[in-house]
């Protein structure tokens, strides 16, 4: 009788596993910083309507372009609105739109990539060439076209961003599937007569999930930048909704004498992007997908 030899690696349920991964992520300083930044932004986005000191759309000619003070911590903008209020509220749309956008990107990109990787052959060839063709279109132009045709509501922005950022995920998912597909357990499932769907669901997804999730997390930060660029160009959220890209765009011309109204949204945007990037890196390391492999000697 072979006896149980492994004692360190005990059984864990899914929740415990997720907690374990979080703990591993937080064990390194970079991961801890990234996680704290993201957490800070998420909490702020949730609480901001309740803690915002002013109405974000309250225009007042008396308070135009005031420097930071005890009353207006980050000063006011050219229409007299409180920059602090608008900054803490400005992350809300960006976060929601890009979060759901990445989710959509992950879903369609991941599934299509896995499917192409599994079936291969002609279907794979055709789909991948179409994806390549899309990759060659400057996304911002295409986005502008879509937005000007269908409007700038979040219902349009989320799927449009999700579509454009999913293309890269297709390639990653397909490559990850190719790594797995040559393994004998897939051959074994095929020989047993499982359907393609069953093989994708049971055998492939558990093995490529990590790689795709990490890719998705990276895409999230890119999408955030993309979304803010759209807003900056005036094709994102429509005024007076507070948004970082829009705020930067509005205050751009006044930068030389009212720097405060542009610095606050820039700090908000860049800190969130850095935070997501650090978190994604730590996430990848915690899952054992380490891209910095060293030479053996």
């Amino acid at each position, binding site marked *: *009788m*072979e*006896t*149980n*030899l*492994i*004692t*360190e*690696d005990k*059984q864990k349920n899914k929740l415990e596993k997720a907690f374990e991964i979080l703990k591993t992520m937080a064990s390194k300083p970079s991961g801890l910083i990234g996680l704290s930044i993201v957490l800070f932004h998420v909490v702020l986005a949730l609480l901001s309507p309740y803690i915002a000191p002013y109405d974000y759309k309250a225009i007042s000619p008396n308070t135009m372009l005031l420097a930071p003070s005890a009353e207006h911590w980050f000063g006011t903008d050219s229409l007299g609105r409180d920059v602090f209020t608008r900054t803490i509220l400005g992350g809300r749309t960006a976060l929601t739109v890009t979060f759901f956008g990445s989710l959509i990107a992950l879903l369609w990109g991941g599934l299509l990539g896995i499917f192409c990787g599994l079936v291969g052959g002609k279907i794979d060839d055709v789909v991948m060439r179409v994806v390549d063709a899309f990759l060659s279109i400057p996304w911002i132009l295409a986005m502008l076209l879509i937005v000007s045709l269908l409007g700038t509501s979040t219902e349009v922005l989320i799927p449009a961003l999700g579509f454009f950022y999913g293309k890269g995920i297709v390639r990653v998912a397909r490559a990850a599937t190719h790594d797995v597909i040559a*393994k*004998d*357990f897939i*051959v*074994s*499932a*095929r*020989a*047993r*007569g*499982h359907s393609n769907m*069953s093989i994708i669901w*049971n*055998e492939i997804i*558990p*093995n490529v999930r990590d790689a795709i999730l990490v890719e998705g997390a990276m895409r999230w930060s890119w999408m955030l930048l993309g979304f803010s660029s759209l807003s900056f160009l005036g094709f994102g959220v429509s005024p007076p909704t507070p948004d970082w890209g829009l705020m930067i765009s509005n205050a751009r011309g006044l930068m030389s004498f009212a720097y405060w109204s542009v610095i606050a949204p820039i700090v908000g945007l860049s800190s969130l992007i850095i935070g997501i990037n650090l978190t994604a890196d730590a996430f990848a390391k915690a899952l054992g997908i380490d891209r910095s492999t*060293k030479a*053996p*000697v």
Partner: protein
Amino acid sequence: MNEIIESVKNLSIGFNSQKGKQISILRNVSTNIKKGETVGIVGESGSGKSTLALAMMGYIKQGLFPLKGECLFKSKDLLKMSSRQLEKIRGRKIAMIPQNAGQALTPNLKIGYQIDEALKLHTDLNKTERDKKISELLNKVRLPSPETMAFRYPHELSGGQQQRVAVAMALAGKPDLLLLDEPTTGLDVTTQAHVLELLRFIAKDTGTSMIYVSHDLGAIAQVSDRIVVMYAGEIVLEGPARKILKEPIHPYTYGLLKSIPKLSLAGLPASMPGSQPQPGSINEGCSFYDRCNLATDNCKKNSPDLEHIKELDTNVRCFNYKELINQNNNLQTSITKKSNNSEANEVLKLKDVSISYAKQKFFDQLLNKISDQNPTVKDINIDIKKGETIALVGESGSGKSTILKSIAGLLKTKDGQIKFENDRILSSDLKMRNPNDLRAIQLIFQNPDESLNPNHTVEQILSQPLKLYFNLSGEELKKNIIDLLKKVRLGEFYMSRYPRQLSGGEKQRVAVARAFAAKPDIILCDEVTSALDVSVQAAVLNLLQQLKEDLGTTYVFVSHDLAVVRAISDRVAVLYQGRLCEIGPSQNVYKFPSHPYTEVLLGAVLEPDPDIKPKLVAEDIVEEKPPEKGCSFQGRCPRKIGDICNSEIPPWQIGENGNAIRCHINIEELASLQQ
């Protein structure tokens, strides 16, 4: 001759676990390498043999560090040297020959250039002297036509030739010590025998000391003067090769030698229970306590020291070794005879099966046919009886796995039919087969690390076929899984384990259980034991035999290992280049007369006995494609009789004891030639 070249003293190497505990992989290892001596380090995977060998050239893998002790090469400690100092020793004083020369040679540089690089680095010769030296070295490792060989690329050479080039490169610096880490493990049996013979010659010729690391006692027996047996990071037995192999006085070595299938004996070898403990799991007592049948209470509490026995010139780590000396241990006995329960009716028939890997041309694709005049596998006719174990044997490239894949429906056949039960033709396309036929034929793969989904628990793995074929769920599913686990001698608590938490043998048991979950009629075994350690291999073979006797399953067993095949099979089919050479009941195939290729294969089998030397006949030549006409073995055949072998396909001849041989030489003549 008794000058000590390298001496390892009380060496312990370990790593820090995730919980910060210090875990040692090598524990208190001491040994000496004398000048001109070949020392074989043998042990199963995880015994620390490679760690020891690498430490002997001052290299410690990342994550590991020396805990105590020293490695003295010519009385200087290698482990304390800077990398600059080590550079001067490695290659010049200590050279290494890697396991896989095909990967160790740079693919886009010519052989001569690569040897020249080594010469430039380690000697002060000028260009003309180096050129002379290169052909000298290539001559020494007995490569054919050394002048042209220097201008070839590694991929133009066979595996054995690549390994010879690696030996030549290692010899370039005239090292005092050669380190060989499983140098023949990836090679075919015949090639392996040739390389070992070369190594033995070089050791004698140059007086170089060698450290030969291997899990294969057969290979170790051929080259070593002295053998060091490792178990769980410790030396358990050390002494002269003949003594260790003939009269092992440590229970582990004894069990290991007994669990190796031997050509001279039909039937299954005795298996050793359990598996090697994980590093760090032993706190007190002997590390072999769990698996030892001589163990006493003393062994549980105290760990034995390495004891020197003067009259045998042997070091042994066991309290009760005297029992083994007194036992007059006979390694040849204690083999379980297997019963042959094959029935008369055939369950699977291969009729004129040909398989081609050639890419379909556009026109053929339209017509859905393959036009390849010289397919990889051709004209295979085998009838498989219900309940028998038929083995397909051959070296790599013989098409044995290809045939298996075709039976499973994973590879389309070019011509011929695969008939299952009552002459019903099975479609060669997996998708066209009905689910019941898919259920009836199951596969077990070579490497359980690859064949089990790493993200599934054992329960999920076993539930897949049960759900698919029998629509089981809930309590019934669970009950069936537990039954299956019991059948392969694993407990219920394995259900929640992941493959990474299991040892190699346990993983393969799970794979066996998954195959049996489908209640199959035929199980296709693709080299199922070649990734396993020797002691575990015997246990898996015994399990397969037991299950077959209980359930009446038919096995198609593919292996390159003739001794393993001898142990488990009822009938053997020998393949060369995708063509059948010989087929018959296994006791007859292993007796003469046999096909010249079978003869070559049998001659090259390495037995763990220094007195049985392999017979080397066939040269090792690269044969990428089977010959277009004539006998498939014409290129390497030592008994080739002339043009007829090149032009005509030899006829089948039936010997008096029922084995069929495909050869132009008359069977009686063959018998007298092989006497």
